[in-house]
């Protein structure tokens, strides 16, 4: 039993939802572990404090509610007088506030739907008045030709002189010599890009699907599906499915399916499929979807879909789709689509679409669409 499971067991017992077997299991664990016993005692103090919190209803609430109910009934009673208070403007019952006599009485403005108890004779008066006003307005408008029509209404709208400035001429525009244009290569130091670009040096962005960013050096983000960010160095985030973030260095989030977060350095949680959480700091294992384990400290495996392994510390493999491997520390492979490998540290390959390799450190290949290779550091293939 790991620490979280032990804590959950403590909560269950203190919350009176644990079974007899669970209580016995906790007793055994506590008797063998003084630190766990101390933690349990502290939690017991918290539960005791919550249970001891004063919880009372204010004096007079019942009378206030009943008085408000009475006001509401009176306000909504129908009237047959032509100019009496109409139900249209009456406050809803729940908008009426009644306080004890020592406190001010307040009434909120109406916010609820229009009620259906309008007096028909009064409604008729309003309709007749409205039609009469419209006829008068039509007659007056025709008599004085307002608004202006025909040739009286022509003209041009121009900006005022005070907001005009000289327009640029042909000599004001300088074209760059084509031979001096920068090569269309990938920026190595800093920068960002839209769809399909990657920054593989210090900071940058790489979009490998729809939209997203990928920083594979210091800080950055990488989108390998729909939208998202992936930082594979210091801090960042990686979306490998729908939306999410993955930090594979210091802190961050990783969504590998629907939604979730994964911290693969310090502490955090990872949702890898539907919902779930995984602590990726010390050591542990989680099943994230169908079946699988994820060791995110020393070495281990993580199945994040069908089957596969993911080592996010020393060495290992990570399958984030069908099958594949992903090494996000030293060396390894990462398949983030169909099949392929991705090395996001030292050396390796990354397939972020159909097939291909991507080296985002030193040497390697990167396929960011259908097929092909891209060297985004020092390495090899284009």
């Amino acid at each position, binding site marked *: 039993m790991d620490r979280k499971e032990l804590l*959950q067991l403590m*909560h269950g017992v203190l919350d009176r939802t644990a079974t007899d077997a669970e209580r016995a299991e906790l007793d055994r664990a506590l008797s063998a572990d003084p630190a766990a016993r101390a933690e349990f005692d502290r939690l017991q103090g918290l539960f005791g*404090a919550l249970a001891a919190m004063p*919880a*009372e*209803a*204010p004096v007079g609430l019942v009378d206030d509610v009943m008085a408000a*109910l009475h006001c509401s009934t009176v306000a909504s009673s129908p009237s047959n007088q032509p100019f009496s208070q109409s139900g249209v403007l009456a406050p809803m*019952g*729940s908008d009426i506030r009644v306080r004890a006599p020592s406190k001010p009485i307040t009434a909120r403005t109406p916010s609820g739907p229009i009620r259906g108890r309008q007096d028909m004779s009064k409604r008729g008066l309003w309709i007749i008045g409205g039609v009469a006003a419209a006829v008068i307005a039509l007659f007056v408008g025709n008599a004085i030709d307002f608004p202006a029509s025909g040739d009286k209404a022509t003209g041009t709208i121009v900006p005022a002189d005070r907001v005009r400035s000289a327009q640029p001429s042909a000599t004001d525009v300088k074209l760059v010599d084509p031979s001096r244009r920068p090569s269309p290569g990938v920026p190595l130091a800093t920068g960002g890009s839209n769809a399909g670009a990657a920054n593989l040096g210090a900071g940058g962005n790489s979009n490998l699907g729809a939209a997203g960013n990928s920083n594979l050096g210091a800080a950055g983000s990488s989108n390998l599906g729909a939208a998202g960010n992936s930082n594979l160095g210091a801090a960042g985030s990686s979306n490998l499915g729908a939306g999410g973030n993955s930090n594979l260095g210091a802190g961050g989030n990783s969504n590998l399916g629907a939604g979730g977060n994964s911290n693969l350095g310090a502490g955090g949680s990872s949702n890898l499929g539907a919902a779930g959480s995984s602590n990726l700091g010390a050591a542990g294992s989680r099943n994230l979807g169908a079946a699988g384990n994820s060791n995110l400290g020393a070495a281990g495996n993580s199945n994040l879909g069908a089957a596969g392994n993911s080592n996010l510390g020393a060495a290992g493999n990570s399958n984030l789709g069908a099958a594949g491997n992903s090494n996000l520390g030293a060396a390894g492979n990462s398949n983030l689509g169909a099949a392929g490998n991705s090395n996001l540290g030292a050396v390796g390959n990354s397939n972020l679409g159909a097939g291909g390799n991507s080296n985002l450190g030193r040497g390697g290949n990167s396929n960011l669409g259908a097929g092909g290779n891209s060297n985004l550091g020092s390495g090899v293939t284009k």
Partner: protein
Amino acid sequence: MRDDSDHALLERFRRGDAAAFRELVVRYQRPVYNAAFGVLHNADDARDVAQTVFMRIAERAGDYDPGYKFFSWIYRIAVNESLNVLRRSGREEALDEDAEVADPASGPERQLEDGERARLVRNALKKMSVADRTVITLRHFSELSYQEIAEAIGVDDKTVKSRLFEARQRLRALLPEL
């Protein structure tokens, strides 16, 4: 049994028996008020919300579906009304530490009775998110079961259990002196 009785009281109220409605208010005033107070941490707002909840119950008595539990219905209204108040006042996040924390019974005698521990818990709850405060309030102050909380806030039992665990752990971290 309690739901049957609640439903019977509601039926009597629909037929014009105000005393039946009064009985419902007496029965639920405390948990409804405390649910609102736990989320809002403001006695006046909680009182207003409690009153609003009962007025909504009165307005919608004819809409009540006896297939659902009455208390789930009333708590759902209470939580939603409390969240609406927070939204209207721009207080959706954790409360400002300096914000008003009016005690349900704010007299000096009551303050003394509450003691230091209650004050610490209340201040720690103020610093928590609305979601955390809501589940802790419904569980520990309104004393709802996991299933009842699930029905009140529209999630499943496992989510309630998970949220409660995480919320309590965060509360625990905010209360090292306990």
